[in-house]
């Protein structure tokens, strides 16, 4: 079964949440009634001194975090239907309060504010501040909320709820709950998770047959808790047969895990490769095709990244769209900067590649300091749109982060677009003509200066586009460019100057090699080893992986 089919689009989430807020009180009620019989004696005893729901909610506003945790504890035993709303808002940081006595407690939902207790509309009320929550409180709340989420219409939510049950340990009561839910569950993924949860629960059973069956059941599960439970049995259980059965189960799980880990590594490598590809691809044009050793390439990437920041500052309401706006904007801005550099400096230096190195090195210093002066030396905060964050979890041991996935796809798209430009357009034809024989191209009527400016602009623009992508992974600050410049040169040289395919292959293979070395050698040594391999490789093939062949290249 294709795991991808199980994924629900993330965009529906907000809508679903809204719906959920309407439904939740019902579950809350159901929940408390379920557990009521056991708790009745103690609850009844405490009833006398117990403050009302309203008082408790108002208590949330003040006091220390520890007090708040106690209040939450007290609240959780309350059976008020407003409870779920309050908890959900509190955990999401949407529960607000002011400093009045007693305080006004409000729930924020987007722009709308409602009174948590009366449900009255409070939109526009001033001086409301968020009620702070810390980790332990949040964990506590999540546990409460998870129980309520088991009947959530969103598959992801239900799955997460079951996951949390597994993590927190399944007891008789939750097991009953899960069993009941299993009957109505329609998602296979959640079904599997419930089966695992129940099997983990059954492992603790007294009946040996049930335990063996549970072990058998768990041998197909990739859940970490399942493995931990099995490991516990394999190591400590008194029963030898159970021990060996558990050990066997673990082994079969491990072999599957190592396969997925390999897939994960492969993806990590390709993703690192795509970052290298993006960083290097502009250079493959300016350096590879035009022969300009552009040390300011990194700074062009930086300008692209700053453009993303600029777009987000200019259109604070369009964060979701900011990247899509930033791509063309960054392309245009960096292309213009690139053309300015070409017209202002580089055109005087054609045929003297080593001197372009010096001049562009100077330019890179100027650009860096310019950014420091204009935007301050501090890093800028670029936020990630909702659709690019989070993970695509294929199974419990293999999940792929969206950012990386999109960047990989984006890198390839940029690459193939560039390929098309170079191979299929007249500009591409002229670029190749000029790069191979400037005088001849001019003789057949190509305006070489125009082509030079456009080519450099193209390479720079692509660097800017790379900057947009990198802004989602790393710091946006004046030093951004320097972090990538050397790697970029390595990629281009390794792939073979003047060969775009070479750049692609070299970026991907460097990414993969680096990633497969890293677990064994450590991040630092892996990089050193890759560099040494690169140096040795260049000795063997001085013109890179895909050298330009033929008579022209001989000199």
């Amino acid at each position, binding site marked *: 079964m294709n795991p991808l089919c199980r994924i629900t689009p993330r965009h529906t989430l907000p809508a679903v949440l809204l719906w959920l807020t309407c439904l939740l009180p019902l579950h809350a009620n159901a929940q408390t009634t379920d557990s009521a019989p056991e708790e009745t004696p103690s609850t009844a005893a405490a009833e006398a001194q117990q403050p009302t729901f309203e008082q408790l909610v108002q208590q949330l506003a003040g006091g220390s975090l520890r007090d708040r945790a106690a209040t939450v504890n007290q609240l959780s035993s309350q059976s008020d239907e407003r409870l779920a709303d309050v908890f959900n808002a509190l955990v999401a940081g949407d529960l607000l309060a002011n400093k009045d006595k007693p305080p006004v407690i409000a729930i924020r939902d987007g722009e709308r504010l409602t009174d948590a207790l009366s449900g009255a509309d409070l939109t526009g009320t001033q001086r409301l501040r968020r009620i702070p929550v810390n980790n332990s409180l949040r964990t506590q709340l999540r546990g409460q909320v998870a129980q309520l989420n088991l009947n959530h219409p969103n598959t992801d939510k239900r799955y997460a709820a079951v996951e949390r049950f597994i993590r927190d340990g399944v007891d008789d009561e939750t097991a009953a709950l899960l069993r009941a839910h299993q009957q109505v569950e329609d998602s296979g993924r959640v079904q599997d998770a419930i089966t695992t949860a129940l099997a983990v629960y059954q492992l603790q059973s007294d009946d040996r047959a049930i335990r063996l069956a549970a072990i058998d059941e768990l041998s197909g599960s990739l859940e970490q808790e399942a493995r931990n439970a099995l490991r516990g049995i394999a190591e400590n259980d008194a029963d030898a047969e159970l021990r060996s059965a558990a050990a066997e189960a673990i082994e079969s799980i491990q072999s599957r895990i190592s396969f997925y880990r390999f897939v994960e590594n492969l993806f990590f490598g390709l993703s690192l490769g795509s970052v290298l590809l993006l960083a290097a691809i502009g250079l493959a044009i300016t350096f590879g095709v035009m022969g300009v050793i552009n040390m300011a390439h990194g700074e062009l990437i930086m300008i692209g990244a700053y453009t993303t920041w600029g777009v987000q500052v200019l259109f604070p309401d369009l964060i979701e769209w900011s990247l899509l706006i930033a791509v063309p904007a960054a392309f245009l801005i960096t292309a213009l900067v690139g053309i300015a550099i070409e017209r202002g400096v580089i055109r005087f230096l054609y045929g003297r590649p080593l001197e372009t190195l010096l001049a562009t090195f100077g330019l890179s210093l100027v650009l860096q300091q310019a950014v420091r002066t204009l935007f301050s030396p*501090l890093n800028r*905060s*670029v936020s990630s749109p909702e659709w690019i964050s989070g993970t695509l979890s294929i199974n419990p041991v293999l999940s792929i982060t969206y950012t990386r996935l999109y960047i990989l796809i984006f890198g390839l798209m940029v690459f193939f677009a560039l390929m098309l430009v170079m191979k299929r357009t007249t500009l591409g034809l002229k670029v190749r003509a000029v790069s191979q024989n400037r005088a001849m191209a001019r003789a057949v009527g190509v305006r070489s200066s125009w082509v030079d400016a456009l080519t450099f602009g193209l390479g720079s623009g692509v660097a800017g586009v790379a900057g947009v992508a990198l802004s989602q*992974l790393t710091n*946006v600050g*004046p030093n951004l460019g320097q*972090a990538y410049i050397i790697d970029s040169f390595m990629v281009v040289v390794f792939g073979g100057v003047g060969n775009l395919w070479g750049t692609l292959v070299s970026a991907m293979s460097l990414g993969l090699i680096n990633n497969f070395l890293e677990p064994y050698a450590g991040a630092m040594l892996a990089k050193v080893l890759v560099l040494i391999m690169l140096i040795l490789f260049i000795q063997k093939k001085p013109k890179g992986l895909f050298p330009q062949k033929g008579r022209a290249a001989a000199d």
Partner: protein
Amino acid sequence: MKLKNLVKKAGALGVACSMALGALSVQAEETIKVGVLHSLSGTMAISETTLKDTMLMLIEEQNKKGGLLGKKLEPVVVDPASNWPLFAERTRELLEQHHVDAIFGCWTSVSRKSVLPVIEELNGMLFYPVQYEGEESSRNVFYTGAAPNQQAIPAVDYLKDELGVERWVLAGTDYVYPRTTNRILEAYLKSAGVAEDDIMINYTPFGHSDWQNIVAEIKRFGSTGKKTAVVSTINGDANVPFYRELGNQGVSAEDIPVVAFSVGEEELSGIDTTPLVGHMAAWNYFMSEDTPENEAFINTWHEFTGDEKRVTNDPMEAHYIGFNMWVKAVEKAGTTDTDKVIDAMVGVEVPNLTGGTSTMLPNHHITKPVLIGEIQDDGQFLTVSSTDELVPGDAWSDYLEGSKDLISDWTAPISCGNYNTKTKTCVGAQAEE
């Protein structure tokens, strides 16, 4: 003809040279000069520029109050450009050419190490405002940042006792501060009964940007069912990609909290903090501390920079304390003579910004409160724990083999930076002095 030109050339060069020498030897005037030694360009500018501004602000404020000993204070700002040998050179310049009476500066350990011999040779005073690895004590240096026992150990205690953490990832950038801190923590954890298998140590290069593997590994390490936390000594630029990767791979603060020693308000202002909420940092100061001193400080800072959004952070507070201590000591000594001021420094008490009073100890470290804060989505910290009393800074760690018997005491009769309490001798270089 040619000869004439040669002579001209020589003449021109000579003039240039003499101008050069002249320009570099500026004469001292009737002010008290304060050297500010922070990188304004290069990789460290990102952190240090703010400290330069802080110093300028503090000096301006002091001058508004009438200066010091009836004289105006004059800041001398130089740019060591994130280049370590240049730090030593600039220090020499500040002390020899500009005759400054105190230097406030440095950020990285290596820059301090570079400055150290010069400041000792020329008998100057350096106020070092950043948390550091300890294992050092100099008569001429005052450490106003946190020593490991003022940051790392309380943070680990909090994780252990409050959050019940049993498995530990010590992740750091590969340089001396993380190395030393992690060694101290490792020894400390082991002494607290944590097994070897439950500690994972990982080092990465400066500016490391590809965290996929390491985060995946942390995730696996944290999946054994025991509560796991990451103690991060990851430096500066590498933090953003690290936290982003954590967020992307779905590691939330509830599952595996990260407590960082190098991530403050200023670093957070360059990050989208939404995925970071709940991760922690241990410092001696948070901008969110609700005290009148802090409010006044923040207001002055906003006024000085003309930017309502500028944040304050722990090293700024360290400079604030250090500067006020120096002012007090100079007033106490009645002179800016280095030896007298150094002697007057020990025991000076000034209020810090978190509502307490910091004291300069005989080992040239200060007493500080230790605060643990959780990152909020507005880039501020929510204090979740703070020590009841101020913690005195410890120059030599009690948990390291080489230094557990060492103490530092710059008052008579010991007057030694690395005094061995067992052999009752002053070891190493300072033995001769």
